[in-house]
């Protein structure tokens, strides 16, 4: 009986890691960073290149995933977001530009790696049993990483002085720089934290379901929905993402797998139609970590 929600939680844990990483950027800079999806896909492909094509050890695969995600995110910020924000661009322009960067990076992957699905699998199909519950090793890894990374990120932000600085920056960048602090530092720290999480999510999905160059778009949309529904509290974002995973598993069981994304967005539209105030964008008083 618990088997279904457990598989759902395992899927949800990948969403949750990506949603948390999306929310770190979105709630602090206000950028609806769609090309974060490309960073996530790039991480999965970099790991595939290292592990399967070049048969390097796992540590090299993880490292290359981290580098790929950070490279995509930093390039976006250097060449797209920062110059546009310096020009005083509106959120419409930033969102358009992030879709543009998504097209660029995801299609660079398509050109070099081809569009056929690939999978990063290393005897991860083996199952683990507790009582009468069965999980694959990948699912267990996903759940573990989700718990560890959520605890680490939230712990850092809530309990340390470093985290206090990040929240101050996220809440009000202008005030932060008026106080004589360099606002680029927390910006890059957040972007790098977010890249690490995106790389982990990319690795997990590469192990679990495999990868395609365009997989980032759907994933980042799920992350965006979680960030908007979860709102001002990062823990809320994680719970919404886990909930979406469970809901999708029930939808697959009740209808078919094809309706998964429709379920995520049906949830968003239902909230938008019935209680639009429950959606918390990263503008005005609901901004910040």
């Amino acid at each position, binding site marked *: 009986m618990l088997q279904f929600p457990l598989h759902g939680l395992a899927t949800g844990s990948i969403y949750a890691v990506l949603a948390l990483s999306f929310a770190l950027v979105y709630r602090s800079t206000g950028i*609806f960073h769609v090309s974060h999806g490309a960073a996530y896909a790039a991480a999965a492909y970099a790991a595939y290149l290292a592990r399967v094509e070049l048969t390097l050890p796992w540590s090299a695969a993880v490292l290359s995933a981290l580098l790929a995600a950070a490279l995509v995110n930093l390039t976006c910020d250097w060449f797209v977001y920062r110059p546009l924000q310096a020009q005083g661009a*509106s959120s419409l322009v930033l969102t358009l530009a992030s879709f543009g960067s998504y097209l660029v990076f995801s299609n660079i992957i398509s050109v070099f790696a081809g569009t056929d699905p690939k999978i990063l699998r290393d005897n991860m199909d083996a199952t683990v049993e507790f009582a009468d519950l069965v999980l694959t090793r990948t699912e267990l890894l996903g759940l573990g990483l989700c718990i560890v990374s959520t605890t680490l990120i939230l712990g850092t932000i809530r309990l340390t002085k470093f985290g206090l600085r990040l929240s101050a920056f996220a809440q009000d960048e202008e005030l932060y720089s008026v106080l004589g602090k360099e606002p680029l530092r927390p910006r890059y720290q957040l972007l790098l934290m977010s890249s690490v999480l995106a790389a982990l999510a990319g690795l997990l999905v590469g192990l679990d379901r495999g990868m395609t*160059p365009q997989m980032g778009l759907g994933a980042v949309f799920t992350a965006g929905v979680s960030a*908007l529904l979860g709102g001002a509290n990062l823990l809320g974002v994680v719970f919404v993402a886990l909930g979406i995973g469970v809901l999708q598993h029930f939808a697959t069981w009740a209808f078919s797998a094809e309706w998964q994304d429709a379920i995520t967005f049906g949830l968003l539209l239902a909230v938008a139609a019935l209680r639009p105030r429950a959606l918390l964008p990263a503008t005005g008083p609901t901004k910040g970590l």
Partner: protein
Amino acid sequence: MSYVLHLCVLAAIYSLLVQGLNTVLGFSGRLLLAQFAFFGVAAYGAALVLTATNGSFLASLVTAVLLGGGAAWICAAVSARLVDELFVLATLGVHVIAHAVMNNWIDVTGGPYGLGAFPEPAIAGIGVSSRPVFTTIAVTIAIGGGLFLWAVDRLPFRRCLLALREDELAFRMLGKSPARFVSDSLVVCGLVSGAAGAVYTSYVGYLDPTVFTINSALLVVTAVVVGGGGAFAGGLMGTAVLVLLPEILRLLPVDSGKLGAIRDLVFGLMIVAFLRTRPQGILGRYSLE
């Protein structure tokens, strides 16, 4: 010659889509991602009417226009009150749900297998599928759609949309409702996209959900940004880019399987480059800032 006529039909379809999107993105400053839902619903409706009436093109055109408008009206009901990324995600949600229906309602849409073998489109019993005749009809419809938008352009409606885009607060101060105007602009977009759907169905004679993906919708978004948002001439320029650029890229010495990815990559680069250096697009009068 036949190739030139083919490009003319493509240009007719794209000009309806680009001009329709321009009404929402260029004039009211909201990034609509559901346009290919309107286009797709209308195309499937046109296909069903074509089959049911044994090839009446006019009946399929009228149905498609009404269905496109109706789909837009439904989309507006959930999204018109939202702003910025909330609007983006809500309209994306409408697209995802419409796409899931196209994929899963197999009795009506044929699901992934698609719909085909429509009777030959005819007007008053005279077949119109020969290429020169169909091109004339497609171009006439595109001009008709253009005239409709031009007429809408003359109304105070457009000034209201511009005012809304430039300063929403001042607009509300004048006693106008932003949601109503956004909703009307969506319906205008839906009607015109519906006409494009009818032309597409009769021209190609085959429909499947892969035509109506979010990536294709993003190409139309690029055309509006590059051509010039908020200007009639900008929409025409955007159409020219959308039709001609893939043809030019065909001359590149690369594997034809990669052309799609290279096209999307170039479109992504163009969005970013234009937003950074020329936010008003090639022929736009107002910059998206």
